[in-house]
């Protein structure tokens, strides 16, 4: 059923705009009715992200649709090129321009000689897949057309590929990744594809030593950069103490260097104490049953922390998109049966009432559906009401594990009666 009480699955076009809109100095022209752009700008705020790109709409009228007249688009491209002089113009199709068959590729090709900006078309229009398709396309195209050959290698620096506005906690997680890489290896962040980034820093991405790919949608980009600029990469995000520890060990192998032993010992010592405290606080309850929801890679990476380190049983995990593209990592076989991929609202509601979870690590919609669940932590989008400003509240890394434990301990303390009644 394509009927939704809550939200439909965001489209490839939405993913494209989400990924591009957070890049400073990126210039985007949408060929479609203005309302689509205006809605998109307001929707972007719901992701707790800032519109850093320059975004323009051409608007469209009946003449453009009935007669296929695309002069409005060519004039807008020429105008933006002349007035704002951006190095790149990302020309994004709308659902309407896709349906009427506007050939954005050819328009950009024909116009390229007449403008100074490099024209980069995105022809999806919202019918080619879900938002992960759009994000994959943006990451790949940035690696292909925007990253330049490095003048010189920037020693001890790394890039992050796949931290995007659709990642619920991207700002705080970026800060934590910087802190972990600095503490463990003395490495500094070079650029991010694409959250809070800029065109200039993405152009200079190839100067870094290492690419850290946080989501499968970034693997094609990392492969391209490896091929063109011999940049090594690892895939995966660090969640939990053990997860972060093993993530660092993988980086040790790639960089052929040892992480700072004092830093690591301090972190793991803190980990032991905190995990002990969490176990002590929860031993009097029956084992917690949990639900987890978010992007596939997020689920794959955070699952071991929740189950092994926090001893919470994840009965089911809801993947908030399709898995039609290749490149996703395998989850443990025992867990794959527990995945609900792009499940319907009815299926989720049925599982909520069947499982009656004690805890949900989920998105804003799932939390709204589960009014009676005692312990709830929003970890993914879609976001409905939550405002995030402070960026020292990570989920990734050692501090992320600490922060999640702190939230859970507080919620357990507040909900003791409700939890014990269910014992």
């Amino acid at each position, binding site marked *: *059923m*394509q*009927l*939704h*009480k*809550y*939200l*439909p*699955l*965001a*489209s490839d*076009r*939405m993913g494209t705009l989400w990924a591009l809109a957070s890049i400073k100095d990126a210039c985007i*022209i949408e060929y479609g*009715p*203005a*309302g*689509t*752009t*205006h*809605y*998109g*700008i*307001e*929707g972007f705020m*719901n992701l707790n992200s800032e519109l850093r790109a*320059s*975004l*323009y*709409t*051409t*608007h*469209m*009228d*009946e003449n*453009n*649709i009935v007669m296929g007249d695309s002069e*409005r688009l060519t*004039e*807008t491209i*020429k*105008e*933006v090129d*002349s*007035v704002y002089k951006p190095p790149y113009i990302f020309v994004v199709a709308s*659902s*309407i321009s896709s*349906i*009427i068959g506007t050939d954005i590729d050819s328009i950009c090709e024909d116009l390229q000689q007449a403008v100074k900006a490099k024209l980069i078309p995105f022809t999806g229009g*919202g*019918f080619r897949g879900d938002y992960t398709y759009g994000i994959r396309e943006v990451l790949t195209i940035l690696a292909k057309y925007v990253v330049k050959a490095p003048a010189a290698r920037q020693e001890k620096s790394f890039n992050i590929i796949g931290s995007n506005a659709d990642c619920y906690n991207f700002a705080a997680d970026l800060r934590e990744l910087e802190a972990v890489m600095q503490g463990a290896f003395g490495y500094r962040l070079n650029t991010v594809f694409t959250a809070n980034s800029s065109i200039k820093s993405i152009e200079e991405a190839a100067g870094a030593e290492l690419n850290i790919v946080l989501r499968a949608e970034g693997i094609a980009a990392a492969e391209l950069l490896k091929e063109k600029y011999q940049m090594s990469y690892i895939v995966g995000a660090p969640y939990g103490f053990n997860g972060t520890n093993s993530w660092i060990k993988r980086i040790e192998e790639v960089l052929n260097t040892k992480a700072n032993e004092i830093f690591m010992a301090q972190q793991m010592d803190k980990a032991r104490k905190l995990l002990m405290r969490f176990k002590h606080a929860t031993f009097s309850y029956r084992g917690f049953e949990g639900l987890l929801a978010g992007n596939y890679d997020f689920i794959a990476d955070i699952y071991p922390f929740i189950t092994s380190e926090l001893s919470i049983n994840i009965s089911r995990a809801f993947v908030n998109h399709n898995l039609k593209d290749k490149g996703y990592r395998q989850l443990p076989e025992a867990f794959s049966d527990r995945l609900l991929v792009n499940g319907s609202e009815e299926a989720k509601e049925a599982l909520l009432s069947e499982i009656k979870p004690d805890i949900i690590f989920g998105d804003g919609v799932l939390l709204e559906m589960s009014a009676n669940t005692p312990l709830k932590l929003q970890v993914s989008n*879609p976001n*409905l*009401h939550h405002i995030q400003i402070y960026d020292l509240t990570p989920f990734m890394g050692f501090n992320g594990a600490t922060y999640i434990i702190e939230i859970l301990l507080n919620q357990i303390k507040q909900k003791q009666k409700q939890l014990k009644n269910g014992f």
Partner: protein
Amino acid sequence: MSYKYSLDKLKKVSQIETAKDIKQLSNAQFPGTHCPLFGVALTSGYIKDLYTLVVGTDECTYYTKTFAMERSNSDAAMEDNFLSFAIDQDDVVFGCQEKLEKAILHIDRKYRPKAILLVTTCVLEVIGEDFEAIIYSIQDQVEARLMVVHTEHFKCNSHIPGIERTLEALIHLMEKQPVRSGTINILGHRYSGVEDTELLKLLQSKGIEINVVLPSSCSIETIQKASAAQLNIVTDFTALSLAEKMKQRFGVDYVYFDKYLNLERIEAGYRAVADHLAIDLNMAIATLKSEAIELIEKIRPQLEGKSFIYGNTPLLAFEFCSFLCQLGMAPKLIQARDLYVNDDVYMKEIVAAGFDPYVSRIANIAPLQQLYGEIKPNIYIGHENPRSLMEKGITQVVMDMAAKKLGFEVPITFVKMLSKATDKNHAHTGRGNHHAAS
């Protein structure tokens, strides 16, 4: 070819004859206008027992739903009865009539709504999905009354048609009723608390009762009885079409009494209402009007000679600017959505006052920001980036508060806000006569 943003591309008030004369400053627009679908979202959420089914792309349905959820979360009068039918590529090629009919049956049985508003979007209009045929085919099988609103954005320039058409659609829910003397409907008011407005407090003090407020305080049941009112008072031009339809179908007369700033128009509105309802408002009108005049005259010296750009308010653009011209303020540029009823009158008033400002299309701030230095306004009225205005030394006045008012309280509230803002500005930038925009 070199492009340069220039006011010369625009026409002036005296040259505006049709909506096509209102030009854009640039081809590239930011942020662009909202679409009629947004107009529906602003309106139908107020109506209790009504379910709104938005049929469109993932994007159109997703953002409408998040807006509706946010709005219902912050406004007690709003309900989140929005459902989405997200079309896919197959629907674009083969149509989606059968699937839609199934969805409507499902909604009817699961939620038991009294009415369902089907809302089309751009793609559905382009592929020509026939929603009227869907209603004809399925109405007998469902309990809910079905209605449709079309919201293609490529035929218009703003969200206003979405509001107008949603209100018009309500005529299908109305039934002929015996007239209840001394009752009124308020048509077009989209804010809660209409009872607290000057107009309603005055009418209620004379024993006049509110029958129904469309859309901000109504249900399917009260809408059915809307034709029982003795008089419709249209407080927003978006409800004029509904009022005309109600007059034709049920014989309910109406008075158009918008959120005017001009004192004579407000007085005329009050007198028309009093005549229709056969009540005496002479004393009250005289008192309220003289209070307004006293305040305006007190603040006039502070405002006289100040120049402004009109951006966007919930009030009538040209009527608003005409009022400021009467206060001795100088319009430099008026941003307008379209031309609406009586705009020709208001534009003539502006010219008669000795002003002939440029007129541009609304919701295109990017090129305008490059022209602030040339325009050098003292005041910007409406929503804009406060920081960017502050950097140019331009005082911003946002008028959202005044939109909830009706009667002389509209100009009183506005003039007070304007006075406060310009006072603040004086304190803020008042180092000599320095003006950052100059």
